[in-house]
């Protein structure tokens, strides 16, 4: 009974590796009980970011891993969702209606924009689609920075969200932890992310997902069976964009701030690409592993290096190499090593059982 429920929840796509199952369970439990297991503002911030990036990376994997479409506009869709909430909350005032309207408007705008880009460019070769998404994403980022009257420009927008989701709202104490609105906000992010991830898992394991995989492998063969490749690719692009926008909305609700650097920057796009590759393309669970590892490294690698640098103080050269300021260098080394040792990503490697 329980196995049947689990199988249905995971859409029949089980982790298919004992180690992977244990790691995924550890991440799920860690995130589900993060406010109690790792109390503190920074750790809660990290946990929320992991949840949101899991959804964002999984939605990108739907494009890159399952459909073979390379897009550089994913942060643009993420930003549309975030700005949707920010603008609605700024203009409609604090309230759940503003969050709902902003979220829906952001997702709809992302889907429509994706449809337009898709219809114009998915007929042509993949490299042109990638270039067009890069151009459109750059144009939107510049536009958001320039339209400061509407978007707050480079400074971004600060806005208010319902009080029940802010630290000012106090509910009492549970297991020694003060339950505030921030923790409620965290659980909103956690459950929405879980739901969106399971939805994406359902999509890639549906007949639609199988057609996408077939198209990724050989679009002509899929056409020869009778599948309209442009239709499926465009639908995947719209769906992926809408989910990225929903992740952006969650990010905006969590941060209560949006700006070009936090939602639209090309750096985030590169991070998403790295997370997909490290985790394993076309696996969905790769998004969970990739996002968790990457966000943890972004937040704690500096601390870890600081400790290691202190511990090796007496040795020559090593403390300098482990200086916390060089954390990006080590992140790069970690990335190269992971690609070298796990060419199919961590999930691909664990599933192959090598």
């Amino acid at each position: 009974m329980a196995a049947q429920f689990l199988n249905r929840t995971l859409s029949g796509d089980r982790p298919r590796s004992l180690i992977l199952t244990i790691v995924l369970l550890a991440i799920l439990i860690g995130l589900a009980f993060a406010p109690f297991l790792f109390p503190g503002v920074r750790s809660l911030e990290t946990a929320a970011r992991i949840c949101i990036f899991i959804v964002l990376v999984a939605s990108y994997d739907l494009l890159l891993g399952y459909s073979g479409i390379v897009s550089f506009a994913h942060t643009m869709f993420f930003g549309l969702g975030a700005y949707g909430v920010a603008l609605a909350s700024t203009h409609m005032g604090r309230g759940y209606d503003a969050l709902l309207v902003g979220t829906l408007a952001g997702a709809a705008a992302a889907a429509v924009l994706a449809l337009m880009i898709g219809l114009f460019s998915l007929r042509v070769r993949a490299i042109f689609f990638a270039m067009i998404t890069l151009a459109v994403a750059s144009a939107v980022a510049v536009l958001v920075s320039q339209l400061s009257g509407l978007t707050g420009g480079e400074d971004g927008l600060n806005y208010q969200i319902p009080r029940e989701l802010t630290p000012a709202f106090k509910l009492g104490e549970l297991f020694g932890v003060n339950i505030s609105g921030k923790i409620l906000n965290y659980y909103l992010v956690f459950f929405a992310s879980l739901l969106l991830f399971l939805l994406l898992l359902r999509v890639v394991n549906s007949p639609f997902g199988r057609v996408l995989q077939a198209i990724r492998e050989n679009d002509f063969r899929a056409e020869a069976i009778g599948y309209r490749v442009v239709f499926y690719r465009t639908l995947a692009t719209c769906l992926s964009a809408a989910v990225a926008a929903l992740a952006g909305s969650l990010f905006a609700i969590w941060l209560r701030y949006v700006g070009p650097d936090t939602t639209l920057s090309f750096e985030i796009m590169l991070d998403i690409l790295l997370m997909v590759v490290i985790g394993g393309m076309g696996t969905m669970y790769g998004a969970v592993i990739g996002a968790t590892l990457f966000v943890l490294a972004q937040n704690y690698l500096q601390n870890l290096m600081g400790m290691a640098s202190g511990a090796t103080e007496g040795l020559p050269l090593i403390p300098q190499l482990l200086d916390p300021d060089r954390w990006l260098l080590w992140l790069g080394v970690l990335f190269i090593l992971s690609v070298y040792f796990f060419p199919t990503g961590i999930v691909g490697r664990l599933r192959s059982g090598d």
Partner: protein
Amino acid sequence: MSDPILELSGVHTDIAQYHILQGVDLVVPRGGVTMLLGRNGVGKTTTLRTIIGHWQAKSGSLRFNGTHITAMPTPARARLGIGFVPEDMGIFSDLTVEENMVLAAASGPLEQARLEWIFSAFPPLRTFWKSEAGNLSGGQKQMLSIARVMAEERQLYLIDEPTKGLAPAIVSTMAGALRDLKTRGASILLVEQNFAVAKALGDTAAVMDDGRIVWAGTMAELAGDAALQERLMGLSMEAH
């Protein structure tokens, strides 16, 4: 010949700067196997790919069941009932055998009776039903590629060299499956280099040279005339 299923008239096809088909005129009768023969590089594969729409004909016309399909995109031709088995097998190696078969039945769910018929023709597919297609042997992959086109009723089957590079035992399995398909009344346009298979299966034949059909008639007529074979294809079937 009455009511052919497919007619090509004056079809020219270019691939990049190369002019491959140079006025193909071909009639495929309804029911039975039409062999498309000729030496390597004369345009047989390009002809099949032009019919399915992978390559668009530069000029000329293609009529399928009386409908002009010359400008039609590939998925629309497939939905009209043209099934295609490419030379490179065309399976989706990341998907399981089951998923390949389910995908191939694009117009609806896979019928159990049809599936049993396919399993009887290709028993290994039942054994490896849940396995990734990429892990199958070469012969099993070819079985899957033929099985996929059999997954639902088609009006016309375009099959490109189904026995290429296969062991004799598997060639005989392939020939058996195609014969079975033929006895069910299917119309098949088959490119085949194995003359024993061609002779055994073919009802009519068309021979290509330099991007044109240079001879058309019955398979029996061609198979029985060594001089004709020598003249058309530079070799005799009896030698094979």
